[in-house]
C-alpha cells in the first residue's frame, strides 16, 4: 500500500487536471455556441484595430478647457475604461483641445455611455421622496388635486418648486426599472426628479430635489474612516468626510442652517421630514441623501449612516473623482486599422516558435528523456493559458497585444524554471544516494517550497500592479498573474504527478542512460557498496568546543611544512575566507 500510495495519488491528480482542462474547454465551448465567446483569443488595438472616438469637451459656462482640466479628463476616462475590463485602450489628447479614445473592437453602448458621461456632481436639497416604484396608472393623483405652487419659491428648500408637472413626473418615474437612456443634463436652477438606484442593502428611492446649492467643484477632497465617538474612541461605524473650499464652505453652512431647522422641527433623530435631507447628485442620480444633523460651519461635513468599508470608500471616491465639470460630445467615431501590421504578429510568433524549438533542443540535451516531461508540461501550461485567455477575453474583455504575446513567450522561461528547480532537486537527492522513488518525493518536498516562494513574488507583482497601475501596465500585470497561476497549476497537477508515475517505470527507475536521471552520470556513490563497505561521509561534523582552542592551535603549530601547504591548498579549494585561519597562525 505504501508503495502504491504516491502512484495512486499521482494518477488521481492527473485525472483532476484532465477535469479542469475539460471544464475550461466546456465553458469556452458553451460561450462559443451561445455566440458570445470565440475559440481564438481577442486581439488588442495594436493588432486588430478598433474604434477611434474624438471627444470634444464641453465645459460648464462655455469657457475654454485648460490643460489641467484636459489631463484630468484623460485620467478620469482612463479610470472608467479600465473599470470596464482589461482591454488596453489608448487615450490621448489632440491639438490640446480634444480627447481621443481608441478602443479595440466595437465598443458597446454601455462603454460609449461610460466614456461620454460627464461626472457632474452637485448638492441639492430634498423636497420630497418616495419608494422607487412608479405609481400605478389607476392611483395617480387626479389632476385637480396636484400640488399647486402658492408663491414664488423663496429658497431651494421651498415646496413651491413642486409644480403639477414636476409632481406628475415624480409619480410616473419608475426607479425599479430605470431606463438606460441618458437624459440631457439637468438645469441646475430648476428642480430635478430623479432616482437613487437600488443597492445590495437598500431599495431604490425617488426624489424631487430643489435647485443646486453647492457644486461638486467646491469639493477639495474626500476621505473615509471609522467614525469617532463622543469620547474620541474609534467606533466600528464607517464615515465619509468631505472638505469644501471657501465658497463651498459658506454655501454649505447656509444650506445646513436651513436644513437643520427642518431636522429639529421634525423631532430630531426620530423625525422624518425629507426636507432635512440634502442629496449628493452625480450625473443626475442621487448617490446618497443624508440628513443634516447639525449646522456645518467649517466646510468639513461628515456623512455617517449604514456604511460598510466598501460603500464608504465608493462614496468617498465618487465625491473625490466625480467633480469634473466637463462633459463630452463625440465629434467623430471611426473604425481604425491595426497600428502594427499582421506581419509583426507573424514574425513575433515565428521567432517565438524558433525560440521554443531551441528550448526543446536544450531541454532534451540537458535532461534527455526528462526533457520530454518539460516539453509536455509546457504544452499543458500553453493549453491552460490559451483557454484562460480565450475565456477571459469573453468575460473580462481581455485582449492580447503584441507586448502581451511577447510576455507569454517570456513566461516560458519562468514556467520551465519550476521544472528545472524540481529536476535539479531530484538530481541532488539522487546524488545523496537515494532511490528514484524517494528522490522524487524528497526532491518535491524541497522544490515545492522554493517554487511557491518564488511564484509568490510574481503573483505579488501581478496583484499590486493590477490594482494600482492603469492602462498598459494593468494589462501587463494581468498577463503576468495569469501565467504564474497556470505555471503553479501545471507544476503541481502535471509535472509532479507525472514524475511520480515515471519514477516507477523501469526506464527511469533504473536510471537508463537516456533518462536524464542516470545515477552513474550524476556521480552517485551508493551508501552501501557491498561486501560490508559503507561510504564514508566526506567530512565528519565534529563539534569542537571552545576548550579545544589551545590544543587545536598547538596542532597547527606542530604541522610539518608539507602538511601546512596541503592544508592551505585545501582551504583555497573550499573557497573559504581564511581570515580566521591566519589569526591562528
Amino acid at each position, binding site marked *: 500500500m505504501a508503495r502504491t500510495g504516491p502512484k495512486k495519488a499521482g494518477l488521481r491528480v492527473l485525472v483532476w487536471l484532465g477535469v479542469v482542462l475539460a471544464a475550461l474547454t466546456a465553458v469556452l465551448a458553451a460561450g462559443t455556441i451561445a455566440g458570445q465567446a470565440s475559440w481564438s483569443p481577442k486581439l488588442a488595438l495594436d493588432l486588430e484595430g478598433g474604434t*477611434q472616438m474624438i471627444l470634444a469637451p464641453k465645459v460648464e459656462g462655455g469657457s475654454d478647457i485648460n490643460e489641467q482640466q484636459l489631463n484630468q479628463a484623460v*485620467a478620469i476616462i482612463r479610470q472608467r475604461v479600465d473599470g470596464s475590463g482589461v482591454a488596453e485602450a489608448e487615450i490621448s489628447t489632440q491639438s490640446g483641445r480634444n480627447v481621443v479614445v481608441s478602443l479595440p473592437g466595437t465598443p458597446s453602448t454601455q462603454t460609449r455611455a461610460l466614456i461620454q458621461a460627464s461626472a457632474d456632481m452637485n448638492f441639492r436639497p430634498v423636497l420630497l421622496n418616495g419608494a422607487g416604484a412608479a405609481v400605478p396608472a389607476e392611483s395617480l393623483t387626479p389632476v385637480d388635486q396636484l400640488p399647486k405652487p402658492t408663491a414664488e419659491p423663496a429658497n431651494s428648500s421651498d415646496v413651491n418648486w413642486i409644480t403639477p408637472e414636476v409632481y406628475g413626473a415624480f409619480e410616473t418615474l419608475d426607479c425599479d426599472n430605470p431606463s438606460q437612456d441618458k437624459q440631457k443634463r439637468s438645469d441646475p436652477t430648476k428642480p430635478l426628479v430623479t432616482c437613487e438606484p437600488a443597492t445590495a442593502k437598500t431599495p431604490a428611492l425617488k426624489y424631487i430635489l430643489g435647485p443646486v446649492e453647492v457644486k461638486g467643484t467646491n469639493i477639495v477632497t474626500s476621505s473615509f474612516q471609522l467614525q469617532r465617538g463622543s469620547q474620541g474612541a474609534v467606533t466600528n461605524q464607517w464615515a465619509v468626510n468631505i472638505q469644501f473650499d471657501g465658497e463651498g464652505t459658506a454655501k454649505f453652512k447656509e444650506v445646513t442652517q436651513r436644513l437643520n431647522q427642518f431636522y429639529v422641527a421634525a423631532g430630531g433623530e426620530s423625525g422624518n421630514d425629507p426636507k432635512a435631507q440634502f442629496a449628493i447628485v452625480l450625473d443626475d442620480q442621487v448617490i446618497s441623501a443624508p440628513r443634516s444633523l447639525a449646522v456645518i460651519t467649517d466646510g468639513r461635513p461628515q456623512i455617517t449612516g449604514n456604511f460598510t468599508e466598501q460603500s464608504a470608500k465608493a462614496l468617498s471616491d465618487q465625491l473625490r473623482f466625480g467633480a469634473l465639470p466637463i462633459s463630452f460630445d463625440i465629434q467623430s467615431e471611426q473604425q481604425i486599422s491595426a497600428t502594427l501590421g499582421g506581419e509583426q504578429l507573424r514574425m513575433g510568433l515565428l*521567432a517565438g516558435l524558433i525560440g521554443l524549438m531551441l528550448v526543446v533542443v536544450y531541454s532534451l540535451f540537458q535532461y534527455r528523456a526528462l526533457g520530454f516531461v518539460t516539453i509536455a508540461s509546457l504544452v499543458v501550461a500553453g493549453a491552460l493559458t490559451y483557454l484562460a485567455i480565450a475565456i477571459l477575453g469573453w468575460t473580462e474583455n481581455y485582449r492580447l497585444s503584441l507586448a502581451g504575446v511577447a*510576455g507569454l513567450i517570456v513566461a516560458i522561461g519562468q514556467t520551465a524554471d519550476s521544472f528545472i528547480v524540481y529536476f535539479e532537486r531530484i538530481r541532488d537527492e539522487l546524488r545523496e544516494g537515494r532511490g528514484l522513488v524517494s528522490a522524487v518525493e524528497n526532491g518535491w518536498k524541497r522544490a515545492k517550497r522554493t517554487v511557491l516562494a518564488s511564484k*509568490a513574488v510574481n503573483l505579488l507583482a501581478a496583484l499590486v500592479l493590477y490594482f494600482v497601475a492603469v492602462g498598459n501596465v494593468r494589462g501587463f500585470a494581468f498577463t503576468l498573474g495569469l501565467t504564474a497561476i497556470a505555471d503553479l497549476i501545471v507544476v503541481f497537477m502535471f509535472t509532479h504527478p507525472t514524475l511520480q508515475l515515471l519514477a516507477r517505470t523501469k526506464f527511469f527507475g533504473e536510471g537508463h542512460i537516456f533518462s536524464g536521471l542516470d545515477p552513474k552520470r550524476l556521480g552517485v556513490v551508493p551508501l552501501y557498496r557491498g561486501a560490508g563497505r559503507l561510504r564514508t561521509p566526506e567530512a565528519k561534523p*565534529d563539534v569542537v568546543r571552545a576548550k579545544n582552542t589551545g590544543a587545536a592551535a598547538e596542532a597547527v603549530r606542530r604541522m610539518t611544512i608539507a602538511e601546512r601547504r596541503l592544508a592551505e591548498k585545501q582551504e583555497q579549494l573550499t573557497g573559504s575566507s581564511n581570515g580566521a585561519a591566519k589569526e591562528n597562525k
Partner: protein
Amino acid sequence: MSSSFANFGNELYSGKRSYNFVGAKKVWFLIAAVAVALSILIPVAKGGFNLGIEFRGGSEFTVSNVKTTDAGAGEQAVQDVVPGAIPRVANVAGTTMRIQTDKLTDDETLKIKAGLTSAYGVTDNEVTSTFVGPTWGADVTKQALIGLVVFVLLAAVLMALYFRTWKMSLSAVSGMLVTMFITAGVYALSDFEVTPSAVIGFLTVLSYSLYDTVVVFDKIRENTAEVSASTRRTFAEEVNLAVNQTLVRSINTMMVAILPVGAILFIGAGLLGAGTLRDLSLALFVGILIGTAATIFVAAPMYAWLRQNEPGLVKQAKRVEQRRAGNTDRADASAASAGA
C-alpha cells in the same frame, strides 16, 4: 559535452569544483558599482532617455480620400524626411490614413505633408496635421511608479517573513536595483526609443530578478539552516556552496528564458527592424542576463557579507578553522578532541 555538463553539476554539488562567488565579493561589488555608475552617467551624458511619441506626444497627419491604404507608403514618406523615425500608420474609416510621428519642426512638417500628398495621390488640402498628446500620460507613469514601490516594499516584507531575516530582503532588493540600473543603462546606450513595450519589458525584468534571487536564496536558507551547529563549513562557505549547487539551475533557467527572447530579438527584430518586438526583447534580453548574474555575484555575496560579523557566525567560523586545523594533523587533533 552533455556528459561533461552533468559532471560539472556533480562536482559543483559535492563541492569538488567550486567558484568563489562569495569570497571575491569585493571584485564583484566593484564591477557592479562601476556598471551602475556608468548606467547612470550614460543617459545623463546623452541628455536623458529617447522617449517615444507615447510619452511625449507628437505630430499627427490625417490624409483623406487616399488612393491606396498601404501603410508602407506613409512610413516611407516620413522616413524620407526624418531618417530612422518609427511612424505609427493606421487606416481610419476606409479611405483616411492616420500617421503619427515624434514631434517635428515646422520645416519637417511641411516636407512630410508634401511627401504624403504624393505618396497617397491626394490634393494639398486633404492632408491635415495636428498635435497629439501622449497616450502614456503622467497619470500612467505615476500609478506605475506607485505600484512598483508598493510591490518592492511588500516583496521585501514577504521575503523577510519567509526567510526570517531582513538581510536576505535587503540583499535581494539590492540585486534587483543593480539589475534595474544596468538594464536601463544598456537600453539608453542602444539609443532605442523608449516605448510602452520597453517599460513593460523592464517591469517583467524586475519581477524576474526578484524571482530568480528567491530561488537561489531558498537553497541558501536550506544549506545554512543549521550552520551554527556544524563545523563543516563557515557561513560564507555554505552560502558559496549553495550558489554553486544552484549554478546549473541558474544557467539552465537563464538559457531557457533567454532562448525565446533572443530568437525574437535577433530573428524577429532583425527581419522587421524597429518596433514593439525589438524594444521589448532588448529590455528582456539584457534584464534576464543581468538579473541572473546579479543574484549570483551581488545578492548572494551581499547576504554573506551582511551576516558575517554576527557574533554567532564569527564564533562558528572560528570553530570551523579549528576543526580544519585539527583535521590536518590527524592523530594529534583527534587525540586533542578526545582529550577535551
